[in-house]
């Protein structure tokens, strides 16, 4: 096991972690503001992947245009999910919101199966992104670099949005105390919609990355990354954006490193190890890494 090999694994873990982090941010922002888990968030990833497929490969649009459309599509889907699964449920117990979003998730997945068929489709990025680059003992494709860079840029933009802008203050105020936020004149509906839109846009971009990285997409693609990102958001502490980012990278690295660094017979135990670690983290830090104590919201 050489240093180069380990570095390679770390790089792979970071790439996977970037994607988990982007999706986890959406989960945690939505939870932070309305205290409900958006189960359909993973499916926005799938939609992002398919939109990319459609626009890039079938219509042949330029890459930069496709990326913008993907962001827009993600925002749009996020808004639809808010309107159908969450606005009617405001004030209901937590588990109810979980189930309505689960229902929306099932609908999206099955509509995908009905309209696009369950067959996996192949996905290739334009040539210039497939180039192989070499830095010392580590080799990776240009795609990987673009993924990491884009993820970092988006995360930085998001943190700027949340910390420095008026909308960001409104989002954080609403997340803290919805009624008092209304007393400030903050339009709650619009703030929540903005949260869903931003979360959705990030998730859709993660879908674009996922397609590019793994090459194959199908309508059920969103389930596993959605679940893992949810886990990542929980590890980091639900409601905390830096927590979601940390959680995403920790999960991505753990997944890759467990397989990469342990003897091959243990590979099948990978998921068990990852979840075992997760449970251990939660036992030591019952509110996740950076989470605040859980407040109840009626």
């Amino acid at each position, binding site marked *: 096991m050489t240093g180069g090999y380990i570095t390679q694994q770390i790089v792979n873990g970071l790439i996977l972690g970037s994607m988990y982090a982007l999706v986890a941010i959406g989960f945690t922002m939505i939870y932070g503001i309305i205290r409900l888990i958006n189960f359909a968030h993973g499916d926005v990833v799938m939609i992002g992947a398919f939109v990319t497929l459609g626009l890039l490969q079938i219509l042949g649009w330029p890459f930069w245009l496709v990326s913008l459309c993907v962001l827009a599509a993600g925002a749009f889907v996020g808004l639809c999910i808010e309107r159908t699964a969450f606005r009617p449920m405001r004030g209901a117990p937590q588990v109810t919101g979980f189930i309505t979003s689960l229902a929306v998730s099932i609908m999206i997945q099955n509509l995908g199966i009905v309209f696009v068929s369950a067959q996996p489709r192949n996905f290739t990025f334009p040539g210039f992104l497939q180039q192989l680059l070499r830095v010392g003992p580590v080799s990776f494709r240009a795609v990987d670099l673009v993924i990491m860079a884009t993820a970092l840029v988006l995360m930085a933009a998001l943190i700027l949005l949340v910390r420095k802008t008026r909308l960001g*203050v409104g989002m954080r105020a609403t997340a803290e105390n919805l009624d008092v936020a*209304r007393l400030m*004149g903050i339009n709650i509906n619009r703030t929540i919609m903005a949260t869903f839109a931003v979360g959705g846009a990030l998730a859709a971009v993660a879908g674009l990355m996922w397609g590019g990285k793994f090459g194959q997409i199908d309508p059920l693609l969103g389930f596993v990354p959605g679940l893992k990102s949810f886990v990542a958001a929980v590890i980091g502490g639900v409601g905390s954006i830096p927590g979601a980012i940390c959680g995403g990278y920790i999960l991505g690295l753990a997944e890759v490193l467990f397989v990469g660094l342990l003897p091959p017979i243990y590979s099948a135990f990978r998921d068990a190890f990852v979840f075992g670690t997760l449970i251990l983290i939660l036992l030591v830090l019952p509110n996740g890494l950076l989470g605040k104590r859980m407040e109840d919201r009626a």
Partner: protein
Amino acid sequence: MLRIENLEVYRGRTYVLKGISLEVGRGEIVALIGANGAGKTTTLKTISALLHPHRGRIAYRTETDQELALDRLPAEEIVRQGVSHCPEGRGVFAGLTVRENLVAGAYLRRDKPGIREDFQRVYELFPILEQRASQTAGSLSGGEQAMLAIGRALMARPRLLILDEPSLGLAPLIVARIFALLAEINARGVTILLVEQNAIMALDLSHRAYVLETGRVTLSGASSAIACDEAVRRAYLGGQSR
């Protein structure tokens, strides 16, 4: 400026406000006193549209002398019309800094120079807030949080300032300071509607007062008169006299 007519409000299935009427004139300080559970907070929340009335009207006279029905407007619009509410328990955003809390207060305003001016005014009134501008609001003491909450409400440049029990849980000295500051704010032209359990201080500060007892107004008039009234004690104890 504000006129409430026969307001009836339910919270869930409980009949809380049973038809109250009160008035707040421009430039006045009006106090609403009563024991726990009388419906004081409910009244304020209904004015700000956090609760909706079953029956009754809330009329508000704007700057341009227009009369608006507050009971028909959404909460955001009411704030935009110049009604600022400092909620029960202060309600500061604990995770945001002092400065960010004040920014939140000015959420609806777009006039940057005006906002800067108001920041100065709030810091003048409450110098401690300027000192602690970058600290999170959760780390402030109770008295400081009360000041922050009032300062935040002022950032909206309100015409009518509503306060829900600003003295709650505070040491008497600090309460005195805050009430003195409220008098100053009023002197600068802000109308105040004050809900308080601490009847003595409230009556001392205000021009007129209403006594609320289990959802009904049982007494109203000049604060000085009410302060001398035997019935005030009765309202406090919910109908029992000593």
